[in-house]
């Protein structure tokens, strides 16, 4: 028997079965809370469809670009007005500090190269299992093998399996996305870019995550201009927004 929540969602999506209709009508008639929940869920679904189908992200990209242009322009105008003069004077007074500063910078650079060779630390996310009780599907079993290999960082094996799965189902973005991450795990960033770029340029649920990991891979390949392009596409709503901003600041 279906739960109240399932009946509500089936009704909203227009897939309520005839045998469930009686129970749905009864609840609607006799239970005021059920009616209120139905009203709320219908309203929520309307808003979500509307918002998730909007082009808010494209607009945000434009807004960020315009803000940068305007604020850079203001800064340049202030510099032209002579405010830069004060800055120049400060530079002169700093001259006596230049030698110790350069020495300190060299030490920092050596330390950074020694301890953090790439300059940016990123973490690959876990690969989620898709096990559903009672489901016997050879492809799903193979996928689960990849999940286990990937999560124990055996990226050679997870890459092999995901390549095989992705060849069978090229349209399934989930295989391709985790194949990209597996390749990153193997430090094969060139191949990772090949897998992640179509996802980052597409519209799947992995699009935002792919933009971030593609940005990281491009950064590792020292293709910084392209990296910036994708990191800037990571929206404020994405869980990788802060990470992307951090990497953008390093550049």
């Amino acid at each position, binding site marked *: 028997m279906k739960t109240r929540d399932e009946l509500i969602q089936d009704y909203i999506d227009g897939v309520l079965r005839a045998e469930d209709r009686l129970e749905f009508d009864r609840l609607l008639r006799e239970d005021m809370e059920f009616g209120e*929940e139905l009203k709320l869920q219908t309203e929520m679904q309307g808003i979500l469809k509307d918002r998730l*189908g909007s082009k808010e992200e*494209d*607009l945000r990209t*434009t807004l960020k670009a315009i803000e940068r242009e305007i604020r850079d322009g203001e800064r340049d105008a202030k510099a032209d007005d002579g405010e830069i003069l004060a800055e120049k004077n400060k530079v002169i007074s700093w001259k006596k500090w230049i030698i110790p500063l350069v020495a300190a910078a060299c030490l920092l650079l050596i330390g950074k190269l020694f301890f953090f060779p790439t300059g940016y630390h990123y973490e690959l996310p876990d690969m989620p299992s898709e096990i559903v009780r009672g489901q016997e599907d050879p492809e799903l079993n193979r996928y689960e093998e990849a999940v286990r290999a990937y999560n124990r960082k055996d990226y050679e094996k997870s890459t092999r399996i995901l390549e095989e799965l992705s060849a069978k189902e090229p349209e399934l973005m*989930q295989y391709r996305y985790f194949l990209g991450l597996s390749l990153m795990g193997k430090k094969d960033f060139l191949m990772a870019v090949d897998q992640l770029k179509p996802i980052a340029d597409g519209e799947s649920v992995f699009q935002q995550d792919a933009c971030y990991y593609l940005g990281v891979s491009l950064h590792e390949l020292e293709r910084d201009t392209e990296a910036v392009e994708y990191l800037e596409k990571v929206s404020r709503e994405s869980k990788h927004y802060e990470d992307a901003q951090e990497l953008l600041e390093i550049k």
Partner: protein
Amino acid sequence: MHPDQQLIQFLLENNHAGIQTIYKRCTPKVVHMILANSGSEDDAYDIFQESLVDVYHMARDRGFQLSTSIESFMLLVSKRKWLNVLKKRKGLEVTNAEESLSNSVDDSMEAYEAHLQQVDKENLLMEQLMTLGERCQEIIRQCMNSKNQEKIAEMLGVSYAYLRKKKSECMAKLGEKLRNHPFFKMNRS
């Protein structure tokens, strides 16, 4: 219709040059207002950006009509947003300066209030969506963007029955978060 309605259309069309005009005309006043009310220039640009996104949703979804100049309107929307930030920062303890800011917002906003409240409600729902687990977010996003749920189930590597069950669980969880939010309780019609 106010002649500046054309600028709202530029926002809807994501027209770079048109939006640049909005920025050039409106940001000096917004920056001035926020600097005068305990904020920084960065705060001002952040608030202005969020206000433009709100106006985009208002105009896209409800045939919004501008009845004042774009400068006055954007200043009002930004004031309202900034006031909310100040309230959050100070735990609802509003100072005299903020109170006068609040009063000036209340008087001028009447004509737009219904639109703005609707956008607040929508923003709250989107915020709550981001607090759900990743899997729930993914299922909801997919289900809202496509009618073919069999295909979604296939894409996510799960059965159709499992997808339906998870969708109802995730939407119920989202509904519960919304109902328990103070803003929702305060504004429930």
